[in-house]
């Protein structure tokens, strides 16, 4: 059985010194998912890495939400393309080794 670890958004925002509205904006943009249990909002631990990346983009690199959405989409595309390159390289290696 998979165990989901939840992190309270209030606590997360307090410890990272960020506004709760920023998390809401990310949720509205579909960049992160928020879980609500008994009127308290949480994020799942496996989203923490993504969330912290968005925080760095917004607060450290001064990239607005639209920019973050675009970058996130392009990074996903790069990831897919890198997987495709890996598969094609493996295939090419097979044919080259037959020569």
């Amino acid at each position, binding site marked *: 059985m998979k165990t989901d670890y939840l992190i309270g958004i209030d606590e997360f925002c307090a*410890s*990272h*010194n960020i506004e709760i509205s920023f998390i809401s904006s990310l949720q509205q943009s579909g960049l992160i998912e928020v879980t609500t249990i008994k009127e308290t909002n949480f994020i799942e*631990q496996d989203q*923490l*890495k993504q969330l*912290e*990346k968005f925080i*760095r*983009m917004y*607060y*450290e*690199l*001064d*990239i607005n939400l639209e920019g973050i959405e675009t*970058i996130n989409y392009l*990074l996903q595309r*790069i*990831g897919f393309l*890198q997987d495709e390159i*890996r598969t094609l*390289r*493996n*295939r090419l*290696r*097979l044919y080259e*080794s*037959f020569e």
Partner: protein
Amino acid sequence: MDFVDYYKLLGIDKKATPKEIKNAFRRLARKYHPDLNPNDKDAKRKFQQINEANEVLSDPEKRKKYDQYGKDWQHSDQFEKQKQYQWSQSDSGRTRDTDTQSYGDFSDFFESLFGSTKGAGKRQQVKFRGEDYSTELQLNLLDAYRTHKQTLNINGEKIRITIPAGIENGQTIKIAGHGGKGINGGPAGDLYIIFSITDHPKFKRLGNDLYLTYDLDLYKAVLGGEITIETLDGKVKLKIKPETQNGTKVKLKDKGFPVYKNEGRYGDLYVTYFIKIPTNLSEKEKGLFRQLSEL
């Protein structure tokens, strides 16, 4: 240890204002930040350099020291002693804007001028997730064929991992929580292992299928018979049909590579026959071939 020109790194003039420094750093950080350049070691190295430059030039005290002693950093110890008291009074910690140290170590030049950065984060109250580590692990085809355990040594810590059968060349797996330690009680980063699978002298792999070229002697190819081939799963007997042509391909179902995380499922093994023409024939053999050719 070489002198590092922080102004040049940020592409700014020595008279640059704090705002110009901040803008230059942000412009370059957007280009080289590891979040925007995943798995790019060059970008990471470049970002560490500009981050270090920003760390120095955005701090008036450090900038002053750098401007004064930059090229003659060897003499900065004396300066350090004189300033020790003042530093302890004025050091009020970093702001979020410049807090990107968790991305890596500073250069020897920086540490010789300003001291080690280890433990610098203790002044902060903000928790930060530890750095993600990435390492490459080389396996041979037989290793990748079976689920097995391996012990890795990551920065002095031994980690025992299970490598599922069927892992592909270039595939990355994540070991959560085994990256760098978090700062101020933040969670640890993750460990990413990139698998590099070396070629096998006999078997070629494409996805879950294996390919094998078998040298078949001329007589068996013409008259038919039985051969035994080695698969990764043991020996298999194969019947050869009479008049088998060079390049004939046969498929051995489920004798290929295991399907990743799909226990009991296997790809296929394709065997291609390469018919070997006999060499060093005796006169008698040559005569028999001549007879055949005249029939």
